[in-house]
C-alpha cells in the first residue's frame, strides 16, 4: 500500500508535535538505549500457558517513545502492511496521551493488541527505522503498539472508530481470522451492514486455534471482536458458507459482496513411512486441541491430548516453534525441533527461536526425518533421521539441504508434531466450481484489488497466500475492503 505522506505531514505539523521534538535533542534521543520488555523467567513460564513478555510499564514506554526522532519522512511506515501512522502514535505515548495513541493505531489497524504481539516487526517497520542506518537498534515499535492497546484495554475505555452513516448494504465475510476481522472493521467504518460467518465455535480463526495463549492471550482476541460487535458487525458462528447455506442463498438474502478468508486447510505431511502412526499430529491438530479445545486441562475439558515425554516437532517456522514450546509446557522432558536446514534458514521469528532456546528446547538442525517406527499398538516409538549438509542456494534463495549418505540414526520419540505447512482450506473452492484457483488450490486474485475471478467476491489471507502472517492477512483485508467498497459503489 502506498504511504500518503501529505496526510502524515498534517499530523506531524501539529503544534504539540513540534514542541515535543524541540524538547529533547536528537542526540539525546539517539543515545538512549533501546528498552527491553521484561519477560517471565524461562524455567517458570515453560510450565504454564501464561504470556511470556510482560509489556512495558508507563515509564518504560515513555522513555522508549522518546527515542523516536519523529522523522520528516518516516520510513518505518513503508514497512507496515497496514500503514500505521507510527510516529503519530509513538509521540502520543511520549506526551503520555496513551488513550490517544490507541486511537491513532485504530485509525488504520483494527487489531493493535494482536499485531503488537505477533507481527514480525524486526523484518517490517523496525527494519525500516532510521536507527538501523545509524548502526543503532531500532525503536521498539511493536512493544509500544502493544503497550498502547493494552493500556486502553486495561482502562476499559475502549474506543471504536467513527462510523459512516449506515447504508444498509449487506456484505458477508467468510472466516473470522485476521483478514476477515480487518475487512469487517473497514466495511463497518464505511457504513456497511457486515456479517462475519465462522465455521468453528469461537471467533478469531488462527488467533484462537493456532497461536498459543503464551504468545497471544485469548482475552485480547475476545476484546477485539467485542469492539467489532460494538461497531455493529454481526458475528455468526457454526456456519460454513457454501455448506450451511450456499453463496447463492446468501445472495438471495441480499448480500452484495463477499470476502473469502477461510484460511489454512489440510496439513501437509512428508509422505514418509509410518506417518499415520498414533501420536503423530499435524501442528494444526496439536495446537487446536490445546488452544481451542483446552486439551491441556483434560479431563476437566472433554478433548484429550497425548502429553509426550519425548516430543519431536518437524519444521522451522513459527508454527513449529509454537508446537514445540507447547509440548514443553505439556510436560515433555525432551522437546525437540527437527529441521532439515540450519538455523539461519529458519522462517520462524528470531524472537521465537530465542524464547524456545531459553525454555530448554533442543534444536536438531540439519536433520531430516526418513521414517517413523511404531510399537505393537501402532504408537510411534522411534524416528529415523538423516543428517543433512547445505549445498547451493535453491529457488527460495536458501541453501539447499543435501542428505549425507550413511548418517541415518534413530531417535526415541513418543509424540511427533509435523509442522511443515498447510494447503488452503478446500471447502470454499469445492463450493464454487467457477472460482479460479492455482495448482496449489489457493484462490487467484488481482493483487491490486484482491478481487477474485467472480467479481463480487474478494479474498485474502492464507486462502490466497497459502501460508503467511497475521499482518499480511490484515494488509490483504485493507486492500480488499477499499476495493469492495469501490466495486459496490460502481455497481449500485
Amino acid at each position: 500500500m502506498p504511504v500518503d505522506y501529505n496526510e502524515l505531514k498534517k499530523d506531524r505539523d501539529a503544534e504539540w508535535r513540534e514542541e515535543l521534538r524541540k524538547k529533547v535533542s536528537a542526540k539525546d534521543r539517539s543515545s538512549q538505549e533501546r528498552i527491553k520488555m521484561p519477560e517471565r523467567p524461562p524455567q517458570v513460564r515453560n510450565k504454564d500457558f501464561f504470556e511470556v513478555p510482560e509489556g512495558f510499564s508507563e515509564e518504560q514506554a515513555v522513555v522508549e517513545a522518546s527515542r523516536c526522532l519523529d522523522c520528516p519522512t518516516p520510513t518505518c511506515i513503508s514497512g507496515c502492511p497496514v500503514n500505521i501512522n507510527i510516529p503519530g502514535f509513538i509521540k502520543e505515548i511520549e506526551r503520555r496521551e496513551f488513550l490517544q495513541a490507541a486511537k491513532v493505531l485504530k485509525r488504520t489497524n483494527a487489531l493493535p493488541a494482536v499485531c503488537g504481539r505477533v507481527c514480525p516487526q524486526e523484518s517490517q517497520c523496525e527494519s525500516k527505522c532510521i536507527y538501523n542506518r545509524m548502526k543503532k537498534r531500532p525503536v521498539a515499535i511493536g512493544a509500544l503498539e502493544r503497550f498502547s492497546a493494552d493500556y486502553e484495554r486495561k482502562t476499559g475505555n475502549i474506543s471504536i472508530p467513527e462510523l459512516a452513516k449506515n447504508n444498509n448494504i449487506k456484505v458477508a465475510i467468510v472466516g473470522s481470522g485476521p483478514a476477515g476481522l480487518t475487512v469487517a472493521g473497514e466495511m463497518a467504518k464505511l457504513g456497511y451492514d457486515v456479517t462475519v460467518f465462522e465455521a468453528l465455535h469461537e471467533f478469531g480463526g488462527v488467533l484462537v486455534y493456532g497461536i498459543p495463549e503464551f504468545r497471544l492471550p485469548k482475552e485480547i482476541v475476545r476484546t477485539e471482536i467485542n469492539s467489532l460487535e460494538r461497531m455493529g458487525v454481526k458475528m455468526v458462528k457454526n456456519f460454513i458458507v457454501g455448506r450451511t447455506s450456499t453463496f447463492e442463498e446468501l445472495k438471495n438474502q441480499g448480500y452484495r459482496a463477499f470476502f473469502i478468508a477461510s484460511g489454512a486447510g489440510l496439513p501437509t505431511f512428508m509422505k514418509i513411512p509410518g506417518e499415520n502412526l498414533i501420536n503423530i499430529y499435524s501442528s494444526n491438530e496439536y495446537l487446536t486441541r490445546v488452544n481451542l479445545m483446552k486439551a491441556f486441562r483434560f479431563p476437566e475439558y472433554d478433548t484429550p491430548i497425548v502429553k509426550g515425554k519425548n516430543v519431536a516437532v518437524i519444521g522451522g517456522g513459527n508454527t513449529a516453534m509454537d508446537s514445540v514450546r507447547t509440548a514443553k509446557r505439556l510436560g515433555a522432558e525432551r522437546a525437540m525441533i527437527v529441521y532439515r536446514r540450519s538455523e539461519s534458514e529458519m522462517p520462524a521469528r528470531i524472537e521465537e527461536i530465542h524464547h524456545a532456546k531459553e525454555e530448554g528446547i533442543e534444536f536438531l538442525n540439519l536433520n531430516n526425518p526418513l521414517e517413523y517406527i511404531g510399537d505393537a499398538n501402532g504408537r510411534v516409538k522411534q524416528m529415523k533421521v538423516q543428517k543433512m549438509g547445505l549445498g547451493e542456494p535453491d529457488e527460495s534463495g536458501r541453501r539447499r539441504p543435501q542428505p549425507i549418505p550413511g548418517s541415518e540414526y534413530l531417535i526415541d520419540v513418543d509424540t511427533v508434531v509435523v509442522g511443515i505447512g498447510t494447503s488452503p482450506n478446500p471447502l470454499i473452492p469445492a463450493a464454487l466450481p467457477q472460482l479460479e484457483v492455482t495448482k496449489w488450490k489457493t484462490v487467484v486474485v488481482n493483487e491490486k484489488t484482491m478481487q477474485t475471478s467472480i467479481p463480487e467476491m474478494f479474498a485474502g489471507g492464507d486462502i490466497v497466500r497459502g501460508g503467511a502472517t497475521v499482518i499480511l492477512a490484515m494488509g490483504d483485508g485493507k486492500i480488499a475492503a477499499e476495493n469492495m467498497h469501490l466495486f459496490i459503489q460502481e455497481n449500485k
Partner: protein
Amino acid sequence: MYKILEKEVLSENVVKLILDNPVIAKSRKAGQFVIVKIGEKGERIPLTIADADPKNGTITLIVQKVGVSSHKLCTMNPGDLVTDLVGPLGKATEIEKVGTVIAAGGGVGIAPLYPIAKAFKEAGNRLIVVLAARNKDLIILEKEMRVFADEIVVMTDDGSYGKKGLVTAGMEEVINREKVDLAVTIGPAIMMKFVALLTQKYNIHTIASLNTIMVDGTGMCGACRISVGGQTKFVCVDGPEFDAHKVDFDEMLKRLNAYKQDEEAAYKQYLESLN
C-alpha cells in the same frame, strides 16, 4: 444454541434426537455429518445426520453412549440446548441406479445407513437391507427401513432375533442367491473390514462410511486421516465414504484407539461424579 425438540430411546444405550436447525435441514444430503459440541468444555464430535425434515426445519441424530460426550448428549431431553452444531460436512453419497444394492449396517451404524439406503431405493434400485447387532434390543430402525426396503435380513450375535450370526453371513446368503451390484456398509470398523473382505471375494464394489476421530471436521487438522489405496486421505473432506476395498482398516482400527485409555478413565470418573 440449538434446541432438542424430541427424544426417543431406541435401546439401552442408543437414543434418537430431533433437533431444531432449519438451515442444515434444508442443505444436508444423505451421507453427510455434523459436528456437535456440548457445553463450553465439550469436545467436537462428528455424528452422521440420520434424517432431516426440511419442512419442519429439523434434523435427526442417533447417538450411542460410548464416552463422556456421547453420554451427555444421550441424557439430554426435549427443551435442552446443544451448545454448538455445525454442518453439513463431508461429501454426500453418490446415489445412482446400479441395479441391486445391499445396505449392511451394524449397531448404531444402522442410523447413518438409513438415509443412504432410502436414497438408493428412491433412485430405483432393488434394495436389500442387512441389519446386525449383538442382540435384539440393539437392532434399530427396522420398522423405518421396512417402509421402503425390498427385503430386510436381521442378524444377531446371540440369535435373540432374526438369524444367529454376523452381518457377513447374512450378506453372503443374499450374494449366493442373486446378483448384487453394490454394497454399502456402515458399522464398527472391524465389521466393515470383514464386509470388505467378503465383497472383495465376490468382486462387488463396496462403499464404507467411516467415523474416525475428528477435531474441527472442516479440513484443517488431519486427525481423521486414513490410508486409502496407499494414499493418505482425510475423512472429513475426502469422505466420509470410501471404496471399502482400498481402506486400510487395520490402521484405522489402531487410530481409533488413540485415546482409549484416557477416555475410558475419564468416562469412569464422570459416571462416578454423577452418583
